[in-house]
C-alpha cells in the first residue's frame, strides 16, 4: 500500500533500511485494528504475522489453570510484538490481547520469510533488529524474574 | 587534652630511682594513673597506684601470631612496646550504657546517663598510640556530630609519653611516620636510658601542664652526652623496625585491586575472629543493643564494640552484604589503609603491629600489601611462613 510506506518508514524498528528493503516490507504490511478485549492471537496459533503497535496497549499473557490469565508483559506505542514467525515451527506460545483500542501494522510473516530466503541481505537486516529486541526483552524479563520487590528484597 | 607545644627546650633528667615522684605528683594533682602492668602473661593498661606495679625488667617478644613476655637482663621500666590493649579501652569503652528509660503513662521517658569520668593520667603512651589518639579524635570529634562520651574522657587527661628505645617484632611505626619518637600531643615525654652504668629518664615537656609537673619533680638539665644517648637509642629503634610497609600510592593500590585474587588467598587463612579489630587502637566500630528487663518497664541502650568481621555487621533485610571472608577482610584492610583517608584525611593505621601479633594465624598486613603490589607487577608474592 503506497500510503503506508511513509508512515512505516518512520518506525524506529525500520530505521536504516534501504529504500528497496523498506518497499519489500511494506509490500507485506497491512493496517489492522483491535477492539479492547480482542485477542490478536492465542497460544498454539500459527505465527504468521508480527505487529508494529501504532497506538494502544497489548497484554502478553499466559493462561494458568487456577489463576486465569496472567499478564507477563504489556507493549505499547512504537513497540514490536512477535518473533515466533521467525523461528520454526512458527507457533505462538502466548496469548496477546488488546487491553484498549489498538491500531497496528500487521506484517505477513509468511510473505516476509519467503522474501528473506530470496534476499539474504534483507534477512540479515531483520535478524539484527529482532535480536536487539529479544535482548532487551530478555534483560527486562530477567529483572522481572528476580522479583526485586518480593519479601526477601 | 594537652596542647601541642614543640618541645625544643633542653631535656631534663630524672633518675630512675625517683620515678615514683612522678606518680606522687600526678596523684597529688588528682589524677587516676593508668599504665602498663603485667597480667595473665601480657602487658595491659590498668589503673596503677605505685611505680612498682610497672613491669620493670620485663620485655615482650612479638611475632606473627605470637606474644610472649620475657625477663630482661636490666631493670628498665619501659623495655617493651605495646600489648593487646590500647588506650581506647578508656576513651571509647568496650561497653557503655548510653541511657535508661522507663515506661510512663503510655509513653516513655529517657534518662541520660550521668557521666562521672576520672581525670586520667596515661603513663607510658607510645608514639604510635599518640598518633592513634589523634586519629580517633578526628573520628569522634572532627565531624558534624561529636561523641560526647569520647570528648568527656579525652579532655583533661594528662599524657606521659614514652619513646620506644627498642622496636617490637611487628612494629612499623617508622614506615607510617608515627614514631618511634613522640613529637606532639603529650604533656611529658620520657626516654629511658638504661645500661650497666646508668639508669635515668630524659624528660621533655609538651604543654604548660607538663611543665608544671616537671617543676615538681627532682630533675636537672641533661648533659650533652645524656641527650646523645637518648637520640642514639631512638635512631637505633627507627632502624630496627620489625616490619616495613610501603605506603606509596597505597590508597589507589587498594582501590584498584578490589577484585585481586590475592584476597581469596588471605581469606583461606583468616578466621574472621575479629581479634585485629579488638586490639587495633584506631578501630572504632560499635553496635547498639536495646534491652529491657523482664517486665518491659525499664529499658536500656548500650553501646558495645563491634567488628566488621562479624557476619551480621552488614546485615540488611534479606541478608548481609559482606558474606564471604574475603569481602570482610578486604573491607577491614581497605578501610584501614585507603577509605579512611577519604573519610578522615589520614590512614587509620599507626604501625603498632598489634593486628599481626594477635592474629591467631599470624596474618601480616604488611605482607598482604606486599602481595597486592607484587601481583600487580606480575611477580608472585613471597611465601609467608606463618602456620
Amino acid at each position, binding site marked *: 500500500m503506497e500510503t503506508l510506506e511513509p508512515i512505516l518508514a518512520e518506525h524506529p524498528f525500520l530505521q536504516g533500511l534501504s529504500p528497496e528493503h523498506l518497499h519489500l516490507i511494506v509490500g507485506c504490511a497491512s493496517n489492522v485494528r483491535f477492539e479492547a478485549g480482542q485477542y490478536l492471537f492465542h497460544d498454539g496459533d500459527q505465527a504468521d504475522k508480527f505487529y508494529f503497535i501504532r497506538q494502544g496497549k497489548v497484554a502478553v499473557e499466559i493462561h494458568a489453570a487456577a489463576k486465569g490469565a496472567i499478564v507477563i508483559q504489556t507493549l505499547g506505542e512504537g513497540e514490536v510484538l512477535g518473533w515466533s514467525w521467525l523461528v520454526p515451527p512458527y507457533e505462538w506460545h502466548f496469548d496477546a490481547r488488546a487491553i484498549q483500542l489498538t491500531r497496528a501494522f500487521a506484517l505477513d510473516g509468511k510473505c516476509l520469510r519467503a522474501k528473506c530466503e530470496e534476499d539474504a541481505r534483507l534477512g540479515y537486516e531483520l535478524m539484527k533488529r529482532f535480536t536487539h529486541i529479544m535482548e532487551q526483552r530478555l534483560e527486562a524479563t530477567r529483572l522481572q524474574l528476580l522479583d526485586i520487590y518480593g519479601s526477601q528484597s | 587534652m594537652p596542647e601541642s607545644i614543640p618541645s625544643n627546650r633542653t631535656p631534663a633528667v630524672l633518675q630512675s630511682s625517683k620515678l615514683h615522684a612522678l606518680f606522687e605528683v600526678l596523684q597529688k594533682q588528682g589524677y587516676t594513673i593508668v599504665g602498663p602492668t603485667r597480667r595473665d602473661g601480657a602487658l595491659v593498661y590498668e589503673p596503677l597506684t605505685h611505680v612498682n606495679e610497672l613491669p620493670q625488667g620485663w620485655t615482650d617478644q612479638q611475632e606473627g601470631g605470637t606474644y610472649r613476655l620475657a625477663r630482661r637482663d636490666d631493670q628498665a621500666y619501659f623495655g617493651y612496646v605495646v600489648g593487646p590493649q590500647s588506650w581506647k579501652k578508656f576513651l571509647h569503652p568496650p561497653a557503655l550504657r548510653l541511657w535508661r528509660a522507663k515506661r510512663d503513662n503510655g509513653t516513655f521517658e529517657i534518662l541520660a546517663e550521668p557521666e562521672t569520668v576520672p581525670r586520667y593520667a596515661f603513663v607510658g603512651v607510645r608514639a604510635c598510640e599518640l598518633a592513634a589518639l589523634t586519629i580517633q579524635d578526628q573520628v569522634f570529634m572532627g565531624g558534624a556530630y561529636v561523641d560526647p562520651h569520647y570528648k568527656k574522657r579525652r579532655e583533661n587527661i594528662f599524657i606521659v609519653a614514652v619513646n620506644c628505645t627498642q622496636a617490637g617484632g611487628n612494629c612499623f611505626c617508622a614506615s607510617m611516620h608515627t614514631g618511634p619518637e613522640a613529637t606532639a600531643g603529650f604533656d611529658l615525654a620520657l626516654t629511658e636510658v638504661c645500661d650497666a652504668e646508668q639508669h635515668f629518664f630524659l624528660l621533655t615537656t609538651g604543654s604548660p601542664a607538663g611543665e608544671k609537673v616537671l617543676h615538681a619533680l627532682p630533675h636537672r638539665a641533661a648533659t650533652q652526652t645524656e641527650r646523645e644517648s637518648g637520640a642514639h637509642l631512638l635512631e637505633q629503634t627507627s632502624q630496627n623496625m620489625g616490619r616495613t610497609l610501603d605506603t606509596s600510592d597505597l590508597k589507589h593500590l587498594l582501590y584498584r585491586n578490589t577484585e585481586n585474587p590475592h584476597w581469596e588467598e588471605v581469606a583461606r587463612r583468616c578466621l574472621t575472629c575479629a581479634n585485629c579489630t579488638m586490639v587495633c587502637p584506631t578501630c*572504632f566500630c560499635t553496635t*547498639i543493643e536495646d534491652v529491657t528487663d523482664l517486665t518491659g518497664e525499664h529499658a536500656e541502650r548500650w553501646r558495645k564494640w563491634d567488628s566488621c568481621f562479624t557476619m551480621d555487621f552488614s546485615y540488611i533485610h534479606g541478608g548481609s552484604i559482606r558474606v564471604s571472608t*574475603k569481602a570482610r577482610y578486604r573491607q577491614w584492610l581497605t578501610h584501614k589503609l585507603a577509605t579512611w583517608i577519604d573519610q578522615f584525611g589520614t590512614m587509620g593505621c599507626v604501625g603498632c603491629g598489634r593486628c599481626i601479633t594477635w592474629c591467631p594465624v599470624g596474618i601480616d598486613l604488611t605482607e598482604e600489601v606486599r602481595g597486592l603490589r607484587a601481583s600487580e607487577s606480575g611477580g608472585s608474592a613471597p611465601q609467608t611462613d606463618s602456620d
Partner: protein
Amino acid sequence: MARNLETHRAAEPRVDDAMLPAPFLVQQLKLETDDTFTLALAPQQKNAEFEFQAGQFNMLYVYGVGEVPISISGDPAQHATLIHTTRVVGTVTKAMRKLKRNDALGVRGPYGAPWPVQNAIGNDVVLVAGGIGLAPLRPALYQLLAQREKFGKVVLLYGTRSPEDILFRSELEQWRARFDLEVYITVDRALGTWRGNVGVVTTLIPKAPFDPRNTTAMVCGPEVMMRFTALELQKRGVPSNDIYVSMERNMKCGIGFCGHCQFGPTFICKDGPVFSYSRIKDWLAKWEI
C-alpha cells in the same frame, strides 16, 4: 524535643547527646498493602514541630525492641505531623506495625543528605520509584509540586511487584489527574483484570517525556533496580552526575560513629543516603562492598 531543620552537615558540631530518642505519639497507622504501612506521628511536646528535607531519614525506636533507619515519606512543608512508610521486614518493623494510636515511638533525626530538589530548578525532573522506593521519593514530589513553575517537565515512573502492592493509590490517581505531571505505573506481574502496564520499571524510561540533556533524575528502590535504571537513563543520554540514587546499609547510630553503614569510602548516614550516581557507580558495580 523536636529537632530544628538541619542539613546533613551542621554548621556547628553538635555536642549534645544525639543518641537520645525523642518520644513521638502515633496519630494514625494506615495499612497501605499487606506488608507495608504508614505511620503518622506527632511530637509528644505540644506545638513542637519537626522539620526535614526530602530524602532524609529518622532512626525510629520501638520501646524495648530496637531502632531502625526509616526514610521520611511525608511533606517537608508540613511540620506538625511526621510521616513514615515502611515494609515489615524484621523484629522492629513487625513491632511497629502493632502500634496503636497514642503509643509512643522514639525518634532521632533527621539525618542524611537530601534529594537535590533545589538544584533541579530549571530542569526536567524524572522520579523513578521501585516498590517501597516510592516512599522516600514522595517528599521530593511534594516539594516539586509546591513550586511547580520552577521546573520543566516532571515525570513519575513507578514500578512495583503487582497491582496489590501499589502504594498511595488515591494520591497516585490525584497526581495522574494533574495536567502538569506525567505518571506512568507498571507492575512486574498481574492478573488479566489489570489494564495497566506490565513489565519492569526500566521499560518506562525510553518513552518517558523528558529531555535527557536537561534532566535531574532521582531514583529509589532495590539496589539492582537502581543500577539498571541508571543504565537505562544513561542510555537515553542523562549524564551520570544528573542521576541520584538513595542507598541503604545497616545502621546503628545514624550519625557517623558506629561504622556499620560504610559503603566504600562513604558513610551512608552522612554522605548519603542520596548520592549522585557518578560518585558511587564504580563501588556499586563491585560485589559485597
